[in-house]
C-alpha cells in the first residue's frame, strides 16, 4: 500500500509539472517510466501513467490562461481569446476550468463504470467508425474556417497545414513523403512558437504595449458563478469524442469551443477544457476494456506493457496486489477518482500560488517571456530529434509569416490545426476512399 501511494504521489507531482510546464508533451508519462520498466510492476506503471496522463491535461490550461502560452496542445484553441481578458478574469477562469476539468473527469469516469459493469464495451467501440470521424473532422474544418475574417484564406491555410503535416499512412503515394522532406525539421511546437507565441511577443515589444495588469490580489477577485451549463456541454462532447482514435482530446476541445458564439469567451474556454479532460478519460475505455490503444500515450504505454509480457486485455483482469478483491481495471477507476479529486483540491489551492507568482512577475514579464521562449525551444529540441540549422531557419521563416499575419489581423489557427489534424484527416479520407469508392 505504501509503495502504491508513493507511486501515485509521484505520478500526481509529475502530472502537475507536465501540465504546468508549457511544451512538455502529454505523452511524457510512459517516457519517464522507460528506464524503470524492469523494476516496476505493471500496477505501478499503470498508476503512474494514469496520474500523469490526467494531471497533464488538468493543469494544461493554467499556462494558457495566465500567460497565453498553451501548456498542452489542446489548450491552443482558445489561447488567442485570452488577450481579451484582464488578469482578474483570467484567475477566475482558472478556477472555473478546474471545476470543468473535474466535472469532465468524473462524468467520463461514470460512463466508464457503466460500460464496464454492464459489459457494453464492444457496443461503445461501434461508435468509433470512420464515417463518424470523417463527418466530425470536416464539420470542424468548416466551422473553424467559416468563423474567421478571411474565410477563403482560412480554408487555404487549413489545406496547407494538412499538406505539410507528418503523414503516417505508409500506403500513401511516394510523392506525399517527398513533399514532406521540406518540412521534416518543423515540429508542432516550432509551428506554434513561430506562428503564435513569438510574433505576439515581438508585436508587444515593438508597440511598447503596456504589460499585462498582473498586480492583482486574490481577495479582490470577484468569484463568478460556476458555469455548469458550459461545463456540461464540454463534458458530454468530450466523453463521446474521446472514443475516436487519435488526438481526440484536441478534437473535442475544438468542437466544444466552436459550439459557442464568438463573444462568449469564458464559456468557450470552460467548455473546451471540460471537453478535453473528459475525452482524456473516455479514451482510456477501449484500452482498458478491449486492449486497443487509441492515443499516442496509450500506444507508448502498450509497448512498455508488452516488454513486461503483459497481455491485453486479459491481464487487466489480474488481481491488484493491494486489494485482491479488485482487478487492475477497478484499480484504475480508483486511481482516476483519487487523482482527479487531489488535482481539484490543489487547483483551487493553487489560485493563491498563481497570484504570488504573478506578483513576482510584475515588471519582469518581458524577461520572463524571453526565458520561456528559450525554454520552449530547448524542450522542443529535446523531444524532437531535428537538425538544428534547418530547425532555426524554419522557425525564423514561420515567425516572419506569423508576424505579418498578426499585423494584418489574419488568424493563423486554421493553419496550425490543419497541421495538427492533418494526419488524422488523411487517414480518415483514405479510409473513406478505400471503403466506399475504390474499385478492384
Amino acid at each position, binding site marked *: 500500500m505504501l509503495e502504491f501511494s508513493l507511486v501515485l504521489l509521484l505520478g500526481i507531482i509529475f502530472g502537475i509539472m507536465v501540465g504546468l510546464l508549457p511544451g512538455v508533451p502529454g505523452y511524457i508519462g510512459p517516457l519517464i517510466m522507460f*528506464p524503470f520498466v524492469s523494476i516496476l510492476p505493471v500496477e505501478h506503471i499503470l498508476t503512474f501513467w494514469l496520474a500523469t496522463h490526467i494531471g497533464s491535461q488538468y493543469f494544461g490550461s493554467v499556462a494558457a490562461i495566465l500567460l497565453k502560452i498553451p501548456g498542452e496542445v489542446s489548450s491552443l484553441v482558445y489561447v488567442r481569446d485570452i488577450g481579451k481578458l484582464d488578469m482578474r478574469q483570467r484567475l477566475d477562469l482558472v478556477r472555473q476550468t478546474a471545476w470543468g476539468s473535474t466535472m469532465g473527469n468524473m462524468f467520463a469516469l461514470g460512463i466508464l463504470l457503466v460500460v464496464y459493469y454492464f459489459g457494453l464495451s464492444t457496443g461503445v467501440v*461501434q461508435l468509433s467508425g470512420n464515417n463518424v470521424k470523417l463527418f466530425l473532422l470536416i464539420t470542424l474544418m468548416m466551422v473553424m474556417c467559416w468563423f474567421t475574417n478571411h474565410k477563403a484564406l482560412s480554408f487555404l491555410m487549413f489545406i496547407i497545414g494538412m499538406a505539410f503535416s507528418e503523414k503516417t499512412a505508409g500506403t500513401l503515394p511516394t510523392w506525399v*513523403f517527398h513533399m514532406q522532406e521540406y518540412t521534416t525539421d518543423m515540429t508542432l511546437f516550432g509551428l506554434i512558437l513561430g506562428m503564435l507565441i513569438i510574433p505576439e511577443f515581438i508585436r508587444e515589444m515593438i508597440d511598447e504595449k503596456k504589460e499585462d495588469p498582473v498586480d492583482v490580489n486574490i481577495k479582490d477577485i470577484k468569484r463568478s458563478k460556476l458555469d455548469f451549463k458550459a461545463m456540461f456541454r464540454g463534458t458530454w462532447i468530450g466523453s463521446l469524442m474521446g472514443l475516436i482514435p487519435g488526438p481526440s482530446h484536441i478534437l473535442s476541445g475544438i468542437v466544444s469551443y466552436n459550439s459557442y458564439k464568438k463573444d462568449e469567451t469564458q464559456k468557450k474556454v470552460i467548455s473546451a477544457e471540460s471537453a478535453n479532460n473528459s475525452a482524456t478519460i473516455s479514451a482510456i475505455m*477501449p484500452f482498458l476494456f478491449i486492449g486497443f*490503444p487509441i492515443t499516442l500515450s496509450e*500506444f507508448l504505454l502498450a509497448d*512498455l506493457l508488452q*516488454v513486461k509480457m503483459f497481455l491485453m486485455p486479459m491481464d487487466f483482469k489480474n488481481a491488484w496486489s493491494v486489494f485482491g478483491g479488485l482487478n487492475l481495471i477497478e484499480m484504475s477507476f480508483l486511481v482516476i477518482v483519487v487523482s482527479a479529486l487531489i488535482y481539484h483540491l490543489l487547483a483551487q489551492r493553487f489560485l493563491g500560488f498563481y497570484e504570488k507568482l504573478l506578483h513576482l512577475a510584475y515588471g519582469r514579464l518581458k524577461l520572463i517571456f524571453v526565458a520561456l521562449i528559450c525554454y520552449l525551444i530547448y524542450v522542443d529540441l529535446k523531444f524532437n530529434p531535428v537538425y538544428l540549422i534547418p530547425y532555426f531557419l524554419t522557425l525564423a521563416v514561420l515567425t516572419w509569416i506569423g508576424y505579418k499575419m498578426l499585423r494584418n489581423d489574419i488568424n493563423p489557427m486554421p493553419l496550425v490545426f490543419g497541421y495538427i489534424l492533418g494526419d488524422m484527416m488523411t487517414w480518415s479520407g483514405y479510409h473513406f476512399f478505400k471503403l466506399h469508392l475504390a474499385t478492384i
Partner: protein
Amino acid sequence: MKNLWKLLLVSLAFTSLQTLAADKLKVLYVGQPQAGPPMVITKALAENLTVDWEFVSMKDCAGALEVIDKNENVLFLMSDVTTMTGHRRDEQSLSKAVHVKDVVGTTASSWHMCKVNGAEHEIGRKRFAVGVASILPVEGFVRDLNENNATKAIGVGYKSSAQVAQALLNGDVEWGMVNPGFSEPLMAEGKLVCPYTFIKQGTEMISKDKFMAKEFRMTVPELYSAYLINIKSGDEKIRADVNKAITSDKFAEFLVKTNYINTKVGFDAVDEAEVDRFFKYIDTMLVELYKEDGYDWKKEQTKGKK
C-alpha cells in the same frame, strides 16, 4: 604548482568519465516517438543486458547511420518494412551498416485473418474490405490475392493491428489481418474468429491446417514482418553480453509469449544464409507483390544515396 596537479588530476578524471560514458552501449531506435514492435524488441532485449547501456532515438535512418558510424558500441534493429519503405522512397536504410558477423538474431511477427464472430461474410467474389496494418505492403498482397483467386478484396491500411481489430469490431471492414497478440485474446473472449493464419506452423489457438496459402493461391505464401538484430562492437565483453541476453530464457519467454515467429538467436545461430534470407524476402516482396526493382543488399551497402 600543487594546484596545477590537482587541476590536471580532476581534468583527467573528468575526461575518463566522459570517455566511459561515450563507450556505453547505445541501444538505437529509429522513429519518433518511440513506439512499435522494433522498440519493444530492442527494449526487451536490453532489459537482459548486464553492461551499461543507454537508449538513443533517431528520427530517420540517415541519423541512425550517423550514430552507428560515430559510436564504437551500438545495438540496433532493422526491419524489413522500414527497408522496403526506404527503398521505395529512395531513402537510406540501415542495411548499409549490416555485417554478417555482427548479426546476433532474427525474428518476425505475422497475422491471423479474422472477422467478427457471427459475421457470415466469406472471402469470395463479393466486394469486401480487408484491414491491414499499413506497414505491410497491403496493396501488393491484396492485388495478388485477387489475381490468383478471383476474389474482390479491397486492401485498407491501418496504423497498427489494434486499429485493424477496432475497424473489424466497428464494422468498417469485413476482414482483417490481426497480429496474434491482439487477435487471440479477442478470440478467447468470443469477439473475433480467425479462420485462417499467415503463420505456416500455426499457433496454439490456430492450427497449421488453417494456413492461408493452403486455402488460397498466393505468390508469396508466407507473409510476415521480419527484424534483424545487430551489435556493432569490437569489445568482446559487450558482444558476449548481448549474445547471452538474446539467448536467455527470459528473452525467449518474451518472444514466445508475444507471438514472435521464425526466431533464430545467438551468433552461432545466424549465418550468412540467414541474413541473405532476410534480404531475399524484401527482394521477393518488392518484385512479386509490388512489381518494382529488386533489392540487393550488398549493392545497397556501396550506394551513396541521400
